[in-house]
């Protein structure tokens, strides 16, 4: 799931778990700033890898991928974090409510959820992330550089500026 210019010199991959409060905090506090400062101007391509630290949160990653079918992934992604802390936020009913709030076609979304279309994709994401050394969330890859944890904007700025500076100079 990606947004931003395909030609951007920097690609940031976000590996998040929808049950992780630090991932929520990152998305509330920092993701929007990076989007405004770097994604919209075309310097950064932002990629999200729906991931799950355990089986409890895997259904949320599957639901997010169902939203991606309707090109509403990022809207759903943000709203799903907003439901964190609700008693039933990992239930199908909650996923459907978020889908409704995100303006998704509910019939198609429900069919996708029921068919478990993306269970394997989530498992593949987990295996791929584990192979890259991910064992906590949020984890980011700024091009090849791994950043662990809910880091402030300045951490990303340092990496981005270093890469863009090298690109400009080279």
């Amino acid at each position: 799931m990606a947004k931003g210019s395909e030609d951007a010199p920097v690609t940031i991959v976000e590996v998040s778990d929808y049950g992780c409060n630090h991932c929520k905090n990152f998305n509330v506090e920092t993701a929007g700033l990076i989007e405004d400062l770097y994604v919209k101007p075309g310097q950064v391509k932002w990629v999200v890898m729906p991931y799950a630290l355990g089986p409890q949160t895997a259904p949320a990653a599957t639901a997010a991928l169902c939203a991606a079918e309707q090109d509403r992934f990022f809207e759903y992604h943000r709203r799903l974090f907003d439901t964190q802390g609700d008693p039933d936020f990992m239930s199908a009913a909650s996923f459907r409510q978020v889908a409704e709030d995100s303006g998704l076609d509910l019939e198609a979304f429900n069919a996708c959820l029921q068919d478990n279309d993306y269970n394997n994709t989530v498992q593949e994401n987990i295996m791929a992330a584990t192979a890259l050394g991910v064992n906590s969330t949020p984890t980011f890859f700024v091009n090849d550089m791994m950043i662990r944890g809910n880091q402030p904007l300045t951490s990303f700025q340092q990496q981005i500026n270093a890469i863009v500076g090298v690109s400009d100079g080279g």
Partner: protein
Amino acid sequence: MPLWVLAMGVRNWPEDWQIRLIQLLAVPGLMVAFYLLLYHNGNLIDACTASSWDDCGKVSGPDAPYSSIGPIPVALIGLVGYAVIFLLTWLKDWWLLLDDYSPELIVGLTGFAFLFSLGLTALELFVINAICRFCLVSAAIITIMFVLAISYLRSFSGEAIGEAAD
């Protein structure tokens, strides 16, 4: 005085050694509580780990549902509790009235803190389904303090009975 102290050949061991140990333990207690308060306030960068059982974020994070009692963070209650225990064990040396009642007061305080910690640990194990190692360290400190406080109360009561008999 405990036998192991005698066996170590320590001389001039204070009669209220339990109180000195409680006072000493209050220092790491304060540090742990302060760390947890920073954690609760989101001042420490952290991440969720793959292990579902060791996650301070779920227990004491800013969005953790059981990390506050109303508007008051649990970590702040801990910080104040350790501060009160430290002050009590320090002030009793200067304030005779406090010294007279210090065994009961310290048992009461550490007993309440022990029950509070027990409740929080039960919440972690059976409701939140995650533990925070720093909370466990705090619970261990409180438990040791409570045991020491009871030991002090018993020795104090023994002295009082001895004095009355004399």
